[in-house]
C-alpha cells in the first residue's frame, strides 16, 4: 500500500489522506475494496483490491463433471445466472460440435434477454442509489421481481437458476409462459419511462454524471473493457451482433453506443439496451418454433481433447469461457473464465483520478461490477 506522500502546497505542507473504502462500504457493491489517496476530497490515486469473494470456482470446476459445472457458473455473476449458464453450455457444445435445436436456442435468447433486463434493473437501482436517488432503486427492483417470477415459473429458482443443459434445456416452457413474457414487456415499456422521468433530464443527475469518468474509445479498448462501458465510449462492439450465438442471428436489434464516454453515456447505453432487449424478447417469443428442446447428446459427456474459447455478451460485457479437455476424463483439464466485471474493473483506476470521493461511488456503479464474478 502506498505511504502518504508529502505535498508541498503554497502555504502549508499537507498530507495525502489514505482512505480505505470497503470491503464493508454501502456502495462498493459487495466486497470491493478501493484504497483511495485523497488530496482534500480529490482522488489522487486509487488502488483496487479484490479477492474477498474468491471461492475457487475455476479450480472446483476441474474436479466436477461437465454437467455439474453448470451449477457452479450460476454463482459467478449471480445477478445474471442464466447468461452464465448459456455461455458455459455453448462452449461445451462448441467443443463437442453438438447441434442445439432451434426451439432451445430461442428460449435461451429469451432467457438471456430477460436476464439482461433483470441485471440492468439491479444496476440502475444501485447506481441511482449511489448517487442518492433512492426511489429509482425500489422502482427498478419492483420490475426485477417480475422477471424473477418468470424465471421461477420456468425453472423453480429465483436467483441461481441452473437453467441450461449441455445440448439444450432441462425443461420445456410452462404453458402460457410466453403470454406472461409479452405481458411483462408491455409493463416494462411503461416503467422505463418512469425511470427516465426521474433521471434522464434531472439537472442533478446530469451534473453528477456528465463528464464524470470520461474514457475515450482508444482508452476503453486499451483497458480491455467490454459491454456497456466500452459501447458508452463509442465502440460498436456487441458479441450478439458480431459473433451471434443462440438465436441472435435471426433477431433484428440495434447496438446502442454513446459518444462522450462518460457516466451519463454509459447510463444512456444501458437504458437503450433495456429497449433493445424488449425488442428481442418480443421477436423471439412471437417467433418461437415448435420442436425438441434437447439435441442429440451422448449419455456421457466427454468432449474430445483440445481447447476452446467461446464468448457471449453478458449484461456486463464479454463473458468468455476457455476450457481445455484432455479427452479422457469426465471433467475439464483446465477451466478458465474471462469475466466482464473483472476486466471492466481495470477501468476504475483510470476513471477516478482527479475526481471527488462522491464520483468514485458513481463510477463503481457506472461500471456495473458484480464481485462474485470478479473473484469467482
Amino acid at each position: 500500500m502506498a505511504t502518504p506522500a508529502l505535498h508541498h502546497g503554497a502555504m502549508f505542507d499537507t498530507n495525502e489522506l489514505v482512505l480505505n473504502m470497503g470491503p464493508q462500504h454501502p456502495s462498493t457493491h459487495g466486497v470491493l475494496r478501493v484504497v483511495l489517496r485523497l488530496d482534500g476530497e480529490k482522488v489522487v490515486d486509487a488502488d483496487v483490491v479484490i479477492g474477498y469473494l474468491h471461492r475457487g470456482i475455476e479450480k472446483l470446476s476441474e474436479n466436477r463433471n461437465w454437467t455439474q459445472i453448470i451449477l457452479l457458473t450460476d454463482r459467478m455473476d449471480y445477478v445474471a445466472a442464466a447468461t452464465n449458464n448459456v455461455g458455459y453450455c455453448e462452449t461445451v457444445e462448441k467443443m463437442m460440435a453438438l447441434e442445439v435445436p432451434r426451439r432451445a436456442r430461442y428460449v435461451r435468447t429469451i432467457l438471456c434477454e430477460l436476464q439482461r433486463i433483470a441485471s440492468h434493473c439491479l444496476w440502475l437501482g444501485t447506481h441511482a442509489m449511489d448517487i442518492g436517488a433512492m426511489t429509482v432503486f425500489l422502482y427498478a427492483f419492483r420490475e426485477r421481481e417480475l422477471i424473477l417470477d418468470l424465471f421461477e415459473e420456468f425453472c423453480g429458482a429465483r436467483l441461481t437458476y441452473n437453467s441450461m443443459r449441455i445440448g439444450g434445456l432441462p425443461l420445456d416452457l410452462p404453458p402460457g409462459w410466453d403470454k406472461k413474457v409479452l405481458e411483462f414487456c408491455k409493463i416494462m415499456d411503461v416503467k422505463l419511462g418512469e425511470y427516465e422521468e426521474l433521471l434522464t433530464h434531472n439537472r442533478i443527475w446530469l451534473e453528477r454524471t456528465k463528464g464524470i469518468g470520461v474514457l475515450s474509445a482508444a482508452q476503453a479498448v486499451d483497458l480491455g473493457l467490454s459491454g456497456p462501458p466500452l459501447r458508452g465510449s463509442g465502440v460498436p462492439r456487441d458479441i450478439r451482433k458480431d459473433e451471434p450465438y443462440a438465436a441472435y442471428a435471426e433477431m433484428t436489434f440495434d447496438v446502442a453506443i454513446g459518444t462522450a464516454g462518460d457516466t451519463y453515456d454509459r447510463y444512456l447505453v444501458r437504458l437503450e439496451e433495456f429497449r433493445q432487449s424488449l425488442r428481442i424478447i418480443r421477436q423471439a417469443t412471437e417467433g418461437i418454433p415448435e420442436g425438441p428442446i434437447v439435441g442429440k447428446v451422448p449419455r456421457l459427456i466427454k468432449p474430445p481433447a483440445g481447447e476452446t474459447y467461446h464468448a457471449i455478451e453478458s449484461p456486463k460485457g464479454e463473458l468468455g469461457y476457455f476450457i481445455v479437455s484432455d479427452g479422457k476424463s469426465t471433467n475439464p483439464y483446465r477451466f478458465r473464465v474471462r469475466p466482464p466485471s473483472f476486466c471492466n474493473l481495470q477501468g476504475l483506476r483510470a476513471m477516478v483520478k482527479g475526481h471527488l470521493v462522491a464520483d468514485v461511488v458513481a463510477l463503481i456503479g457506472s461500471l456495473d461490477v458484480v464481485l462474485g464474478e470478479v473473484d469467482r
Partner: protein
Amino acid sequence: MIDNLVIPLLKILIVLNATLVGVTYMVLLERKVIAWAQSRLGPMRVGPYGILQPVADAIKLMIKEDITPVRADKWVFTAAPIISMVPALIVYAVIPFGDKARLFGRDITLYISDINVGLLYIVSVASVGVYGIILAGYSSNSKYPLLASLRASAQLISYEVAVTLTLVSVILVAGSLSMVQIVRAQESSHVWFLFVQPLAFAIFFIGGLAETNRAPFDMPEAEQELTGGFHTEYSGMRFALFFLAEYANMIVVSSVATTLFLGGWLRPFPNVAALGFLGFIPGWTWFLIKSFVFLYIFIWVRATLPRYRYDQLMRLGWKVLIPLAILNLVVTGIVKVLLL
C-alpha cells in the same frame, strides 16, 4: 409570579415535549411517505400501521450500547451531539405558533417570547447547530467523519450567506425583526410575503434544505459515499440526538418559512372577506397545516432527487444563490425607497 414564571415555564415544557414527540413522529412520517412514494408500505409491525414505531425506536436507541472510540477526543465527542440538539430546540422560543388564546380567564400568547431581534436570534442560534456536526466529525478521529465535517463547513459558508440575505429583504418589507411583528405586517398588508418576495422564498427554501442537511444536499451524511458521514462513529442515544436534531431543524425551517412567507398563523387570503369563515379555525391550526406542507415537501424532495456533489453545492451557493439574493435585496430596497 404566575405571569412571569409559571406560564412561561409551562409553555416551555409544552413546546419542548410537543417538539420532541413531533420529531419522533416526523421520522415515522418520513418513512411512511417515502415508502408510499416507492410503492412500499413502510413500518407496519409495531402497532396498527406502525404508529408505535417511534416508541420502539426510542427504546431501542436508549438501551443500545453507547460506544466512544478509543482514539476519539472524549469531551468534544460527548459535547457534539448536545451542541447539535440544543440550538435546534431553543430556536422554538421565538416562533409564534399563534396569536393569543383565552384560557382560564387569561390571555395567553401562543409563543414563548417575542423578542425584538427574533429573526437575528434564529439565524445565530441555528448556525451554532452546524458546529455539532463539524465537531463530531473532527472528534471522532476517523476518516469518513472527518471528510463529512469538511463538507459541513464548506456547505455552511455556501448557503448561510444567501439565506441570511433573503431574510434581510423580508425584514425590509416587514420593517421589523420580531417574528410576531413580521406576521402582523403580513396581516396589515393583506398579503403573504410569499407573493411579495417569491425569489427570497425560493432561495430560503433551497438554503433550508442545505441547512438541515436534507437531500439533495445531505453531503455531510451521504450514506453511500461517507457511510453515514459525521455520525459514523456514534451509536445509541448520542446518535439519536443527531438524528433528532436533524428533524427538529426541519421543523424549525418549516416554521420559520411559514412565519416569514406564509403568514404564520393567519388564515389563507386574509384580505378576502368572503373567506371569513376560515377564521373559525384557530390560528395555531393554520400554522401547523402550513408547516406540515413544508415538511411534506422536504420528504418529497428526498424521495425524488439524487444528491448534489459538495463542490456543486458550493458553486450553486456562491454563483447562483448569493448573487440572486443580493439582487433581490437591492431591488427590494429600491422599491421600498420609491414607494415611501
